[in-house]
């Protein structure tokens, strides 16, 4: 059992205390009073009990050195995370497992394997933040509570050694105590008296600043942590073609799933000829965007909607989304984020006899849902044998497609006519029309329709207010600790002499002003600054 230390003043101090909580007497042989003043010479509990595994863990996290190292490691990791783009910003449809290596080489692969590509979601980064949180809590408890107790139990009368060893100290002979008390009160000190001794203090609350700001940090980290909890945070992207409806990710509940229809995507540019903007725009090459806007309609399915089934939609409301003007419903907001103009939608062709130029009907192919066969009547028909939405010749020189987006559509058509009942084949793409050379017919290009796409960020955030609250409390703590300081002045009757000592946790200049004022107004000997070897 750890022993309590009873000081000669009668106060019982916890084991490990270096200055008596009540009178300030050094309790060990080699205690330097001034350097112990940071935590009032109180016992940091972590440094006293070292038995179980729990205590050892506790002690580790109680160390400020450990805390600082955690901060350094987190900062370095965050810095490394900016070297290559984060996973969110690499093109969709690519596999990050191969993307980082192919783009950035071996270092890219290591970057990916270590989880730097998704830094805020990687387990070790969250673990580091958790450890930092633990360090903040434990270090604060271990210092804050003993400090609070020491400041609460401090007595008016202090031990001689405590007085003598303060940085500001003086001895006087003939002093009017009431005058000192009055002067200190005029400086807005809180003055207590005991057996002809005085204790004046001011701004004690500033000592809690560090702990208040740590509470703020913990709340902040808790908010950040809650983003990973189900239902608290959604950050997703939704691409919708004009005229189409798509389910909004993250909005599925028991009473239905939200859908969004993109009625129109609008991109407006500034008119360079307009007088108002003329001079501002003359220095700019190209056009300057004025407005990005999506006109949308929100729908909701009935209850028990089965995924994939044709949804029974009920219209909820219409809306317009512009940059910084989101469309809101329930706790969700949709932000204008990106767009794609003129994606190919439908292509038209005519069946043409090469020799005569006569045309035998037109067909329009929906690039998202082409038909197998188009009957043009009178024995004329066209079949689609192959379709490559995003045509490319692969490494075996075979026609194939890069992905499922119709960015470079190409077809293999079979053309049938009464003259050619067995069919003739042709490969047709953009600026390409290849056949065996003996064909009598060809597909001639007859127009294209396009559609715009809009990309919206789907956002739900129940953690923002927690993070804001944490931030505000943090700032209050910082202000409290930085703009105020804890000043103390002791006056002690000592065998005919009057001893005076003063201490502050920061801003010695301000304290010196106070004690100068005090000795000017009274007959107290001016307090002198001790030469501190350790400083």
């Amino acid at each position: 059992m750890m022993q309590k230390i009873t000081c000669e003043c009668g106060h019982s101090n916890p084991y490990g205390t270096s200055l008596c909580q009540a009178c300030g007497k050094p309790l060990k042989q080699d205690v330097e009073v001034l350097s112990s003043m940071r935590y009032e010479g109180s016992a940091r509990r972590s440094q006293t009990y070292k038995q179980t595994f729990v205590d050892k863990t506790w002690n580790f996290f109680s160390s400020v050195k450990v805390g600082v190292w955690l901060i350094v490691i987190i900062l370095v990791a965050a810095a490394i995370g900016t070297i290559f783009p984060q996973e969110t910003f690499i093109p969709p449809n690519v596999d990050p497992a191969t993307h980082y290596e192919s783009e950035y080489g071996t270092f890219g692969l290591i970057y990916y394997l270590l989880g730097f590509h998704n830094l805020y979601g990687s387990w070790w980064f969250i673990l580091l933040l958790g450890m930092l949180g633990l360090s903040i809590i434990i270090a604060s408890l271990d210092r804050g509570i003993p400090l609070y107790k020491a400041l609460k139990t401090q007595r008016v009368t202090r031990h001689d050694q405590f007085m003598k060893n303060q940085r500001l100290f003086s001895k006087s002979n003939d002093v009017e105590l009431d005058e000192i008390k009055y002067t200190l009160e005029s400086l807005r000190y809180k003055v207590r008296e005991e057996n002809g001794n005085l204790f004046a203090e001011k701004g004690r609350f500033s000592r809690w600043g560090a702990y208040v700001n740590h509470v703020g940090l913990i709340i902040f980290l808790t908010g950040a942590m809650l983003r990973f909890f189900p239902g608290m945070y959604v950050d997703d992207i939704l691409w919708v073609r004009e005229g189409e409806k798509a389910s909004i990710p993250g909005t599925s509940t028991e009473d239905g799933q939200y859908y969004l229809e993109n009625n129109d995507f609008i991109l407006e540019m500034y008119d360079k000829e307009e007088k108002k903007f003329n001079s501002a725009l003359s220095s700019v090459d190209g056009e300057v965007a004025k407005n990005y806007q999506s006109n949308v309609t929100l729908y909701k399915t009935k209850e028990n909607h089965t995924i994939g089934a044709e949804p029974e939609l009920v219209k909820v409301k219409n809306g317009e989304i512009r940059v910084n003007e989101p469309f809101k419903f329930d706790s969700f907001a949709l932000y204008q984020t990106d767009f794609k103009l003129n994606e190919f939608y439908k292509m038209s062709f005519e069946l043409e006899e090469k020799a005569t130029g006569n045309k035998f009907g037109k067909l329009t192919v929906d690039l998202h849902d082409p038909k197998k066969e188009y009957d043009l009547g009178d024995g004329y028909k066209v079949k689609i044998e192959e379709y490559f939405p995003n045509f490319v010749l692969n490494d075996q020189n075979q026609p194939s497609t890069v992905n499922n987006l119709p960015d470079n559509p190409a077809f293999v058509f079979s053309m049938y006519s009464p003259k050619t009942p067995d069919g003739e084949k042709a490969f047709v793409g953009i600026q390409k029309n290849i056949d065996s050379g003996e064909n009598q017919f060809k597909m001639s290009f007859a127009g294209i329709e396009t559609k715009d796409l809009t990309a919206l960020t789907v956002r739900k955030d129940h953690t923002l207010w927690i993070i804001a609250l944490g931030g505000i409390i943090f700032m209050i703590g910082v202000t409290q600790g930085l703009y105020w300081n804890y000043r103390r002045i002791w006056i002690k009757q000592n065998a005919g002499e009057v001893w005076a000592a003063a201490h502050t946790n920061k801003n010695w200049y301000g304290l010196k002003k106070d004690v100068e004022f005090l000795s000017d107004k009274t007959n107290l000997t001016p307090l002198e600054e001790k030469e501190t070897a350790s400083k």
Partner: protein
Amino acid sequence: MLKKNRLWFRSALLAILVVAVGYTIYNSMNEESGTYISKGDTAPNFVLTDLNGKQVELEDYRGKGVFLNFWGTWCKPCEREMPYMQRQYEKYKEQGVEILAVNVSETNVSVKNFADRYRMSFPIPMDKQREVTKAFGIGPIPTTILIDKNGKVVERTSESLSEKKIISFMEKIKP
């Protein structure tokens, strides 16, 4: 403070933090596009029309093991595993394992050609609007999800599968 109390307090505080951070890490690993179906979850039901125009509903396969594969014709690793899947499908169909090869947002023309080339005889549900793909939180393809006879997900992988792997998967979900 009593020694016993101190130990209790410290242990409790450490435990709370370990649980909170552990749960956060657990969630972060399962996080992808909002909803993400992984091991232990009940697979959400879905209905899609397959390549032959038939309605395919996942719930109808309760009592059977379901090898749910997400794929595209343009994806090389998907192409590689198709012949293996077809061969094992023929073996395990009688033993109560069904393959559903959900095609991610492609056209019937492309998929029909592909299916004919590889003589694929299992149902190919066409997820034109990517609704099912989104609901299962599918990122890169191919992704294979193994569902047991009770509708529970027992495995989820995004690797390109060898025939051996497919056999071991089939064994795993055989009812």
